């Protein structure tokens, strides 16, 4: 399979600020993202997962190394074809669900009939049909996150980056959202990168899982799950499901303890 995105020797170092030393947050790290795969990223807290996503999305430039998307270098701007969904609620409180979803297409000056068609699809796909004219303040956290996913979806990204999008949701909602995400991935044939701290979630959703070390974050291993493309949350009932989660945890255990130590040091 072709590589959609390629990171070569990427590092991210935050320069020193008043009272703080420079922080080496990420890398050096190299990897290729295969076209159409679902790639999970897990790692101890503070290991640079979000920094990795920012660099991959072009939201921040790497201090060293290069990032490519579809063969072209990414340099501090988000390339066309990349969509990002953040952990925080990023819905626009001043727009209805419908207008939130149509936002990007309107800015691009897309033909109104086409906007209508794509918004109808995305709103229906995310199960928001009954809330088209509602404002985000009238929706639950899970619904708002769906609005954000729909808003990214209408732009038909070929690479979707998700930064712990379900982090603020309860367990049941997370499982259902995971199923929807798998459906979205199958039906759009986009490449998906999901950052999460939940090992089960990474296991269930991903084809491959990058396991990151404590800061500065590097991949200590990339685990292939080998799950069929057509899967949902019932996968967790399989007897071999637990083995993958255990493998992830055994890789992460020492790193997580290391990260805890770093946290304690930083707090001193």
């Amino acid at each position, binding site marked *: 399979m072709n590589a959609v995105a390629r990171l070569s020797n990427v590092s991210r170092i935050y320069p020193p600020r008043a009272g703080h030393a420079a922080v080496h947050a990420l890398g050096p790290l190299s990897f290729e993202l295969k076209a159409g795969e679902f790639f999970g990223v897990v790692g101890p807290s503070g290991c640079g997962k979000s920094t990795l996503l920012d660099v991959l999305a072009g939201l921040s430039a790497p201090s060293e190394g290069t990032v490519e998307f579809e063969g072209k270098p990414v340099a501090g*701007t988000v390339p066309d074809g990349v969509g*990002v969904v953040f952990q925080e609620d*990023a819905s*626009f409180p001043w727009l209805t669900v419908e207008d939130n979803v149509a*936002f990007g297409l309107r*800015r691009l000056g897309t033909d109104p009939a086409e906007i209508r068609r794509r918004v109808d699809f995305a709103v229906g796909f995310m199960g928001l049909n009954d809330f088209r004219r*509602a404002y985000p303040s009238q929706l639950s956290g899970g619904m708002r996150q769906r609005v954000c996913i729909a808003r990214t979806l209408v*732009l038909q990204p070929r690479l979707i980056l998700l930064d712990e999008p379900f982090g603020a949701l309860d367990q049941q909602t997370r499982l259902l959202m995971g199923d929807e995400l798998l459906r979205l991935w199958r039906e759009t044939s986009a490449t998906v990168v999901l950052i999460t701290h939940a090992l089960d979630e990474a296991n269930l959703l991903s084809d491959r899982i990058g396991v990151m070390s404590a800061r500065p974050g590097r991949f200590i291993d990339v685990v292939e799950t080998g799950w069929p493309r057509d899967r949902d949350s019932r996968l967790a009932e399989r007897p071999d499901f637990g083995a993958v989660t255990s493998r992830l945890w055994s890789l992460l255990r020492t790193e997580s303890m290391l990260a805890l130590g770093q946290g304690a040091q930083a707090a001193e």
Partner: protein
Amino acid sequence: MSKAGWIRLVVLAAFFGAVEALCRTGVISPKLVIAPTAMVEAMVKLLGSGELNPDIRQTLSSVGIAMGLSVTGGFALGCVLYWLPPLRRTVDPFLAAYYSLPHFAFYPLLIVIFGLGALPLIVLATLFAMVAMIMATLSGLDRIPRVLIKTARMQRLSLPAEIWHIRLPAAAPHLFSGLKLAVTYSFIGVIAGEFILSTSGLGHQIAYAYDNFDNRTMYGLILLVLCIATAFNLLVFAYERRLARQRGQ
């Protein structure tokens, strides 16, 4: 109407009823306060005679100009300070201490500079109101969630589009608080200024009636000023409610 609303109405009605009764029975001397109904009567008569029309026009136009200047100027200056952090750090203490100054003490100075007439009043009211708008603009821009700015970059918006479609609507509730303060402060600035030293305007007419023991005119005018200020506030309040409803709140 809500229960609290009814209670409020009853308390107000009882208060004015009591004042009315005390005035009409002579317990409160008419040299001190005239009966509320007499105030209304005086106000209607003043409005009907048309003799105060030039003063009303002058005061309202001064207030209007001060509002316009303080809202647009305060917003513009707020944006400049937001985008120039070193400048902001320099002036921050002045902004914080600004409302502890007795602005009206400077009014004679303004008259020396700008002469008698509407101009020093407009300047005084604008100076008084603008800083509230500057501070509201700054706090509005400061509180835009970072994730919305990231979303703007993800949507690949140009800077003008980001400002117009994301930053301004996200800051709107704070900008609106600034607008409300600027409206109120403009009123206070102009009318209080007219009180101190002016040859026309509603504030001057109130002071003039006071100096001449003309209680009817004085209370009629006070009521008129109250009505105008309340009407303005209701207008702003209604608009704010509409905005909040638009956000589904």
